[in-house]
Each structure stands twice: as structure tokens, then as C-alpha cells.
């Protein structure tokens, strides 16, 4: 009896620690340098208060982060007051901080005071070009309709973005291209575009000798940086976040952004904040490249492996049904076919708002699973249909039960086709799994994404090369597996 009590206590203790360890505060960030850095700052702030926290870097745009916060997939993320008013509360009015905070309450979301800097939108140009053409304000662009404008997709669609801006300043430009934020800076430097949208604290503005055009009509609302958090978050965590208010001015944020882009390391940039703020010089343990590679590889294998396993376990039975033809068979093949025509990015985005999924590894695995289904279903069905009728009849005539026919005759005979379907799925999955990083699920997509963000080829290659190698290794292992799993009689 005593030992039973002791056992229960031990179990209780373990489950309690597990619960605690398994529920760190989850911090999200948007897909640009400043958001990454703010995410890191929040993480370290919480960690130093003794609260476990994890940072899901670069999960996407405003809507994805907001939905994730509301859905409880993340607890905290950095946002800007202007964006909250325009994109989340959908009002044209300039709201005060208190008005915004009140409006957010009904979503179960709280907001810190402004962190201290206003990162508003701006249009930027190369300084020498602006001087040559005599352009100082956004309105001056009207005199030069030939200028090529490259805008981020978010800015193109925003309610405080390009369309209303163009109307406000009566700009004639029609030559607009949509381009990724970081790539846009490279395009601007090379001269393939002349004007782009920017955040006023972007480090690249100083670095590339760009000039922000004056917003003489005060078109852009104020974008004071704040942290949004779930009001259900533990009190000590909320207090720690409130402590960050008013500690970051514009100049300092520009420096942190520049540091992040120079060192290609968001943690380092965030550490700079703490050195100056607290005078403390303790750096949190930096991950070496090999540690990171191991982490990415494990996660990538987890994503591709689990989804492949699911595809196999459901794809083969579906393929068996489909091989029998008829309406059901066609429906199964049709469904699997449609799944594969949905662009992988769209599939991810469609799954995110669903209740069970959200921003998580689950979602990535589910999307990859749906994606990998078609090759397996189709190859299983066609492999079975290709078995000559005379051999099917021989199996029936022998008196084998339907199950025995399937397991001993049909599936082994279709094994080559089924395995090649699985191989196709595996290779597709490894490639597509790089997109999982977009919803914070990690893997080799993580360095690719931050490399894209920093416009840094080396970082991109850190993810792209291992992903390609992994695909090759998987291809080879399947060739090896063919020799083990395909019966010898079929390989003659």
C-alpha cells in the first residue's frame, strides 16, 4: 500500500513537471527581421524571469499570426498599432492605444504599452536617384510615371497600402511588381526597381544609402510596436512583457536590425538589447551550425517521415479500393488528384484556420500527407489493375480466400509499382517540407526562409543543400529497398 502511494506521488510529480515543461510560452513572429528580433527579445525576457518560452520564427503575415494568437497556438507576438487598427479591427480611424486595448479585450487578447519606436511604412528610393530627379515627397513621384515600383504582396493588399496611397497622392504609376521584402532591397540596389515599400526602421535604408520619401499628407498611420498576448497567459509573463514598454527607441531598433542582418543571427541581435539595457553581458548559449543542422534534419525527417507513413497507411488501402474502379474508385482517384493540384503553400494556408490544426507541426504533416497521397493511391491502383486477368482468375480458381489473394498474390505482384509511388511521395515530401517553416514548423525551410529574409545566399544554402542531399539519400535507399521488397521473380 505504501509503495502504491509512493508510486502515485512519483507519477504525479512527473506528470506535473511534464505539463510544466511541455507548456512553455509560445512566441510567434512575422516574416521580417524586426519581428524576429522582437520575438527573440521577448523570449529572453521571459527566460530571464524564469519562464520557459519558445520562439516560432517567421510564421507568416498579420492574419496568420493573429489567428494563431486567437486560436491559442501562440501566446505572444510583436505587432504594430497601425496594423492592429487597419488589419485586425478594420477601422479607418486613427485609434488611441487605450481604444485599441479596449477593442482587443473581447478577443481575449491584451496589449503592452508601445515599446518606444514607430515603425511606419515608407516609400524608399536610392538617394542619388532621388536627388537627380528632385524627388523629396511621395507626391513628387507623380512627376515621374516611368519609375518602376516593387511592392511587397502585403503592402499591395493592405487597407493602408498601395491602392489608397495612390489615390491619396493621385499617383499615375501603373508599372508595379510584387516582390518579397528582402529580395526587393536587392532589386532596388541593382536598379531593377526604383521605388519600394519599407519599414522606417529597416537597417537596409542606411546600409544601402536609401532615402525615405516624406509622407506630406500624413497618409501612413502610426505603427507603434507593441506586444500582443493572450489575457489567459500567466501573470508573471504578462508583467515581464509590460516591462518592455518604452525601452526601445527608433535608433536602437535600427541598430538591432542592422546587427541581425550583419551577423545573420537574431539571438545575437536581441542580446545586444540586453547588454545595453541591463548592463549584463551574459550571452545565452549560441547554437553551433552543426547543432542547428542536426535540429533541422531531425525536424525535417519527422515532418517528411510521419506524413509519408500516413500517406502509405491510408494510400495503399485507398489504392486497393480505387483499383476496383466504379464510382467510388474514380472518386478516390479524383480526390487525391485534386489534392495535388492545390499549390502546397495554399494547402498550408487553408489548413491553418481549421480548429485542430493552426500553426503547428501537425498542420505541416497533414498538408504533406495530403500531398503525398496521390502517387501512392495511383500507383497502387494501377499496379493492381495491371495484373493480367488470367492470373487473377488462377488465384480465384485455386480457392484462395479474398484476403489471401490480396496479400499473397496481388500486392506482391503490384509491389514494384506501389514502391515507386512511395518513392515519388517521399521525394516530393522532402522538397515540400521546406515550406513547413512558413508556419513555424521548422526543418530545412527555416534557414531557407531566414536566408530569403536576409537576402543571404549562404544561409539559404544551409537549408537547400541538406534538403537536396536528403532527397538523394532517400532516393538511393528506396532503390536499395526495391531489391529487398520486390520479389526476385519480378526482377528477372
Amino acid at each position, binding site marked *: 500500500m505504501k509503495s502504491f502511494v509512493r508510486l502515485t506521488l512519483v507519477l504525479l510529480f512527473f506528470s506535473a513537471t511534464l505539463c510544466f515543461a511541455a507548456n512553455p510560452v509560445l512566441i510567434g513572429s512575422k516574416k521580417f527581421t524586426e519581428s524576429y528580433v522582437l520575438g527573440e527579445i521577448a523570449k529572453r525576457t521571459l527566460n530571464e524571469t524564469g519562464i520557459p518560452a519558445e520562439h516560432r520564427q517567421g510564421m507568416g503575415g498579420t492574419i496568420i499570426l493573429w489567428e494563431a494568437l486567437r486560436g491559442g497556438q501562440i501566446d505572444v507576438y510583436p505587432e504594430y498599432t497601425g496594423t492592429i487598427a487597419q488589419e485586425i479591427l478594420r477601422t479607418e480611424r486613427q485609434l488611441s492605444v487605450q481604444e485599441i486595448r479596449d477593442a482587443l479585450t473581447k478577443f481575449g487578447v491584451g496589449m503592452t504599452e508601445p515599446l518606444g519606436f514607430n515603425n511606419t511604412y515608407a516609400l524608399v528610393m536610392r538617394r542619388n536617384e532621388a536627388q537627380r530627379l528632385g524627388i523629396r515627397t511621395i507626391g513628387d513621384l507623380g512627376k515621374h510615371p516611368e519609375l518602376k515600383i516593387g511592392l511587397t504582396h502585403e503592402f499591395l493588399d493592405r487597407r493602408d497600402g498601395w491602392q489608397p496611397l495612390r489615390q491619396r497622392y493621385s499617383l499615375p504609376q501603373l508599372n508595379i511588381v510584387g516582390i518579397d521584402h528582402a529580395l526587393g532591397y536587392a532589386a532596388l540596389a541593382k536598379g531593377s526597381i526604383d521605388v519600394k515599400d519599407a519599414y522606417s526602421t529597416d537597417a537596409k535604408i542606411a546600409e544601402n544609402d536609401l532615402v525615405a520619401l516624406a509622407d506630406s499628407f500624413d497618409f501612413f498611420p502610426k505603427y507603434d510596436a507593441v506586444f500582443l498576448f493572450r489575457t489567459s497567459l500567466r501573470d508573471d509573463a504578462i508583467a515581464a512583457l509590460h516591462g518592455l514598454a518604452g525601452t526601445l527607441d527608433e535608433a536602437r531598433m535600427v541598430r538591432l536590425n542592422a546587427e541581425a542582418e550583419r551577423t545573420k543571427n537574431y539571438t545575437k541581435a536581441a542580446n545586444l538589447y540586453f547588454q545595453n539595457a541591463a548592463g549584463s553581458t551574459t550571452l545565452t548559449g549560441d547554437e553551433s551550425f552543426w547543432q542547428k543542422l542536426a535540429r533541422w534534419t531531425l525536424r525535417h525527417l519527422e515532418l517528411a517521415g510521419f506524413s509519408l507513413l500516413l500517406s502509405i497507411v491510408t494510400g495503399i488501402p485507398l489504392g486497393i479500393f480505387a483499383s476496383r474502379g466504379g464510382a467510388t474508385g474514380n472518386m478516390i482517384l479524383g480526390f487525391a488528384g485534386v489534392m495535388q493540384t492545390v499549390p502546397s503553400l495554399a494547402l498550408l494556408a487553408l489548413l491553418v484556420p481549421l480548429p485542430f490544426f493552426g500553426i503547428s507541426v501537425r498542420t505541416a504533416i497533414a498538408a504533406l500527407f495530403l500531398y503525398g497521397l496521390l502517387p501512392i493511391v495511383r500507383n497502387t491502383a494501377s499496379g493492381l489493375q495491371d495484373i493480367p486477368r488470367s492470373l487473377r482468375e*488462377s488465384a*480465384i480458381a*485455386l*480457392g*484462395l480466400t479474398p484476403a489471401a489473394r490480396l496479400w499473397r498474390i496481388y500486392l506482391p505482384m503490384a509491389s514494384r509499382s506501389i514502391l515507386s509511388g512511395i518513392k515519388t511521395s517521399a521525394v516530393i515530401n522532402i522538397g515540400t517540407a521546406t515550406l513547413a517553416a512558413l508556419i513555424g514548423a521548422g526543418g530545412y525551410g527555416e534557414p531557407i526562409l531566414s536566408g530569403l529574409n536576409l537576402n543571404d545566399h549562404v544561409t539559404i544554402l544551409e537549408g537547400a543543400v541538406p534538403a537536396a542531399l536528403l532527397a538523394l539519400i532517400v532516393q538511393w535507399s528506396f532503390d536499395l529497398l526495391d531489391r529487398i521488397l520486390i*520479389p526476385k521473380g*519480378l526482377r528477372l
Partner: protein
Amino acid sequence: MSALVQLVDVTKGYTDAPALHPTNLSIERGKTTVLIGPSGCGKSTLLRIIIRLIAPDSGTIDFDGSQITPANIEILRRRIGYVIQEGGLFPHLTAHANILLMARHLEKSDKEMRTRLSELCELTRFPENLLARYPLELSGGQRQRVSLMRALMLSPELLLLDEPLGALDPLVRASLQKDLKEIFARLRQTALLVTHDLAEAAYFGDEIVLMNEGRVVQQGSITDLRERPANPFVSEFINAQRSVALA
């Protein structure tokens, strides 16, 4: 002694096989019955209906005194051997595994299977050292011997053969014909053999069933057919085959 198989008014409309008009047929125990006729006459359909690869539209088929139904056919199939033109061997299994497939499925003892296998090798004159080969590593004649062994493994009461020698070259065919006839005699095997070749029918058939356009035209010995043709088609069929053989 009653017939082993009795077909009464069996019909099949034309859907996936040549049609069959109401047909009656008995297959006597211990004898070789040959179904012969021009292509599309329904002889293969009839054979496949017996083992229910095709379901008849109407009529009854009795096997050893009990009617064949969808419910009991799976068990009855184990008492019937089936050999087709190309052998129907499963390419992913060795000759050995093909032959033992059903016995293993029924969990026969190893000893029993070994004994039966060497009996069959001896009976079909198949070298035991070739048993480890896959179908693709065997000649056409060897494949048919393996197929025959597979069909005979469980000592079936009835052996169905659908053009078993049709795809073989003449020399192999002649030697296999001879062996097959000996085997039938030794085992007193009840067999139903489909062929389009009159010489083969005459060689094997204790009883020859001539079919045309989904009907049995005449049933009897080769002498009956030759000397007492039931109608002009019978003489025409016999003479046509004879003149081809002479030419």
C-alpha cells in the same frame, strides 16, 4: 455410378464471354471429357462457369451430388484443379511456392507436402532441382508441368484444363500430350479439357462434346462423331480439321 459434375439448363447471356444457350452436360468420373468447337462457341465459357469464374444466368450445376452456390464454391474450388494455356503461374513465386501455395494456405504438414511434391515431380517428369526457379526461368513446357503439379497438389476430384497445350511448340506439345494421357490413366483422373484441335480431342477424349454457337451439337466418342454426325456442321467441322492436317 452418378456423374461427378452435372449441368442442367445452364445459360449465360453475352456480356463478358461468348453466350451459352441452355446447356446440359454430365462429366463422368474417371473419364476425360473434351470440349471442342470453333472459337467463340462457348466451350471456355462452359468450363469457367463450372469453377464459377463466370456466374451462370440460370440453371444448376451439381458437383459430387451437391449444388454449386456462391457460398460453397470457395471450398469446392479446392477439390478442383485448373490449368490454363499460359500456365497461370504467379511470377513472384518460385515453382516450388506456386505448387505449394494452396497447401500452405491450408496449413498442411511439411512432411505431407514434401512427399506429395516428389510424387508429383515423378508423375510429371519434372526435375526436382528446377523447383527453386521462378516461372520466367522455365521453358513453356516446364511451366505447364509446374502448373499441372499445382493443380494436382491437393489431389482434386476434377481437373479442368483450358487449352493447356495451346501455346507450346509441336515437339514439346507431343511429349506433354503423351505424359498427360499417362497421368490421367494412372490417377484415374476425372478431367474436362477444352481444345480446338480435333486430333488432340481424339487422342484424349473418352467423351467428346462438340459445341457451336453456344450449344452442344453432339456428344459421344470420336467414332460416333465421325460415323454418325448429328448434323452437317459436325461432318463439316471434322472434315475441315482433317484436310488441314493433310495439307
